[in-house]
């Protein structure tokens, strides 16, 4: 879906806006593909407003106006709700492109976002060649972790570090978020150590993701994107389960918007005169 580009105002600055189910991210990128600014905020229930606020924050941080941006790509579940986007691309292609740009050797991308998780095979140009996504269940997603952190009564940020201190192996179901929450509460009630439960929660996600990787096959090297990649607990559990070392971007949560901005740059170059 292509929108109009005002050639008179054409700028080499581009942007990507990723309206996800939990968070909206914007990346503004210069002609040299360096990040000029980015923003992350909760999407809430009004996606259009979240996209506008996210863009305004990023623009302010880069001291730019919307009219300074030459091309904008919208992505994520709310990609159709980005009123100022020139075109829309799925988050699958955007995460693939973003990960490949940062890590050219990557052939498998694992993206765990707020309410879905994906495993994507990519080629040497960063194009998705195949992918699998989770079905209609929050197990194995960021939302699952939020619910589990609530059940454990710890902050989400703390749960990863907490899990690293686990001494004993316990098990939490990977099938259903609601059942898993009940299991966590039961383990808690039995006096099980929080660190052991936290580790079991990450292993539960790792089992789920490993099953998805198994559907496509593991192709080295493997990058992990999405907000969940910020948790050392899941990274450690996945690396152990997949027997590999994951490549993690410095800001994994913005990789969808980053990939969208890279695609915006390519599309701008394709429509630029001359």
């Amino acid at each position, binding site marked *: 879906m292509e929108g109009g580009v005002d050639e008179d105002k054409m700028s080499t600055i581009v942007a990507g806006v990723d309206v996800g189910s939990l968070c909206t991210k914007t990346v503004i990128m210069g002609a040299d593909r360096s990040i000029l600014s980015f923003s992350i905020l909760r999407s809430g229930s009004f996606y259009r407003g979240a996209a506008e606020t996210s863009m305004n924050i990023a623009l302010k941080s880069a001291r730019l106006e919307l009219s300074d941006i030459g091309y904008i790509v919208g992505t994520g*579940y709310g990609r159709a709700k980005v009123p100022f986007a020139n075109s*829309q691309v*799925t988050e699958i292609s955007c995460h693939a492109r973003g990960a490949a740009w940062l890590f050219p050797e990557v052939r498998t991308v694992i993206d765990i976002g707020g309410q879905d998780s994906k495993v994507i095979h990519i080629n040497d*140009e960063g194009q*998705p060649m*195949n992918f699998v996504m989770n079905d209609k269940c929050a197990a194995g997603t960021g939302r699952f972790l939020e619910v589990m952190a609530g059940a454990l009564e710890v902050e989400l940020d703390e749960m990863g570090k907490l899990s690293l201190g686990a001494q004993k192996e316990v098990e939490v179901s990977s099938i259903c978020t609601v059942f898993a929450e009940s299991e966590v509460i039961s383990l808690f009630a039995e006096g099980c150590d929080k660190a052991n439960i936290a580790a079991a929660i990450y292993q539960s996600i790792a089992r789920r993701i490993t099953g998805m990787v198994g559907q496509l096959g593991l192709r080295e090297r493997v990058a992990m994107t999405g907000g969940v990649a910020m948790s050392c607990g899941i990274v450690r559990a996945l690396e152990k389960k997949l027997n590999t070392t994951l490549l993690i971007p410095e800001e994994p949560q913005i990789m969808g918007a980053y990939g969208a901005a890279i695609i915006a740059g390519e599309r701008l170059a394709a429509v630029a005169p001359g």
Partner: protein
Amino acid sequence: MVALGFLGEIIRKLVSYGAIPICGRYPWEFFPHAELIDPEDPVHTFVQQFYTHKVAWHDAPEGAVELIAELVDDYSIDSLIMLASRSCRLWNLGQPDMVDTIEKKCGVPGVIPDSDQIDSRLFSEARIDTRLAALFEMIDGRRSRRR
């Protein structure tokens, strides 16, 4: 190639991508004798075939793969959409293997949207939209690589 979607929704969505759902497993597997269907009287001869001939030849994954590979070749098909219907888990059992085998055998990608053809509680439009959009981006990517 396409499987049934929730009340035809998936098929209607394909139109917005300029894609033509050209064939599916159901008619070929359940009614494999196309030569017995009279185009002048399709409903009557279709029903007659149900009573006079064995149906559902190929619903085991190995047979289905053979049939799908032939259809991919006959119709120059670009991709495969296999609906994983919650109401019919037995039918869905081999789908990931079938998509994988067709990809290796014919070089045609496929997706498996999780949904249902009847129960609207199991139909999530946004999730299906993302899978279909990503499939078309993947097809475009493969085409541009071939050029």
